């Protein structure tokens, strides 16, 4: 009987450590890596029809301006995750609106949502969802609200992409 009890305790301990190990591996190691950036220079060439007209209102980046890679989400079970997005302005004009949308699924796990433009604000907003490791998810940016009412200056903002484990 003693032998049986010992084996049961051993099995319980193994099970417990097993869960903790899985928890750390799946939840703690999801990482996000970005490449790319976008800049746009607007000048008199962007007047809609020359002198007497306003500046073109909106501008789009290349469809692959930003590339996102998610790693550490391909454990025994594919981890589901969500990308949140927000911007933190360094110098920005109130008329300018920055938008973001996902233009490709990348390769690897699964990705859904985020394929329509959504405006960026100063607080985290859900962007798109996915599961498992995915590389090369492309993102496009759009700037709107440009007019001659926006004074000449350099406007800078930082876009933060955060991966959140949703399992």
């Amino acid at each position: 009987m003693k032998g049986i009890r010992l084996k049961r305790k051993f099995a319980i301990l193994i099970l417990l450590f097993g869960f903790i190990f899985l928890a750390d591996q799946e939840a703690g190691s999801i990482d996000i890596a970005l490449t790319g950036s976008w800049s746009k220079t607007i000048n008199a060439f962007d007047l809609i029809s020359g002198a007497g007209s306003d500046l073109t209102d909106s501008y789009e980046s290349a469809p692959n301006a930003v590339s996102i890679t998610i790693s550490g989400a391909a454990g025994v079970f594919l981890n589901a995750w969500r990308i949140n997005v927000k911007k933190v302005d360094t110098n920005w004009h109130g008329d300018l609106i920055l938008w973001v949308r996902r233009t490709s699924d990348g390769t690897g796990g699964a990705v859904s949502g985020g394929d329509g433009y959504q405006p960026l604000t100063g607080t985290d907003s859900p962007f798109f969802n996915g599961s498992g490791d995915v590389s090369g998810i492309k993102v496009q940016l759009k700037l709107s609200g440009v007019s001659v009412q926006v004074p000449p200056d350099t406007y800078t903002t930082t876009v933060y992409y955060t991966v959140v484990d949703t399992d």
Partner: protein
Amino acid sequence: MKKLMTVLLAAILCLGLAGVAMADGTDEIIGWVVVEETVELDLDIPNKEAAVWLGPAVAGFDYEWEETFTAGAFKFSHNHPVDMKITAAAVADGGNATNDITLKIYLGAWYTLLVGPATTGSAVVWIGPAGAYIKTMGAGASATLAGTPHGTYKWTVTFTAIDA
């Protein structure tokens, strides 16, 4: 069996806490927009010339005031944070005979550029905030028979936009 259940619940609780508290990473990109100075002024007058004909309408009377207008001839865009002003400066052609022509520019109102026999003159013809503007533009002239012999008189009018 009772012990096993307790341990499993504890383990699942650990998993849940880890999922909420530990499972995110953040990366960032920086984007910037450079809005350059945009000041575009164009005068859309046919051949860039405004011709005003002066001629006595009735014998025994002096020249009449004459004027000509071109709708939408003045086209201006600027994005300066302060008002801008446009100055029109007239310089008489070297071949002009001595005259007493008064030359005016219309841009919402009449502005006198010069009064002969002066050969140069200028006036501020527009002031305004950032925006896109298209306006009717005109030119007008008057003279006296005694002070201006018949002939052709030319001026070059240069428009300059600067901060007001």
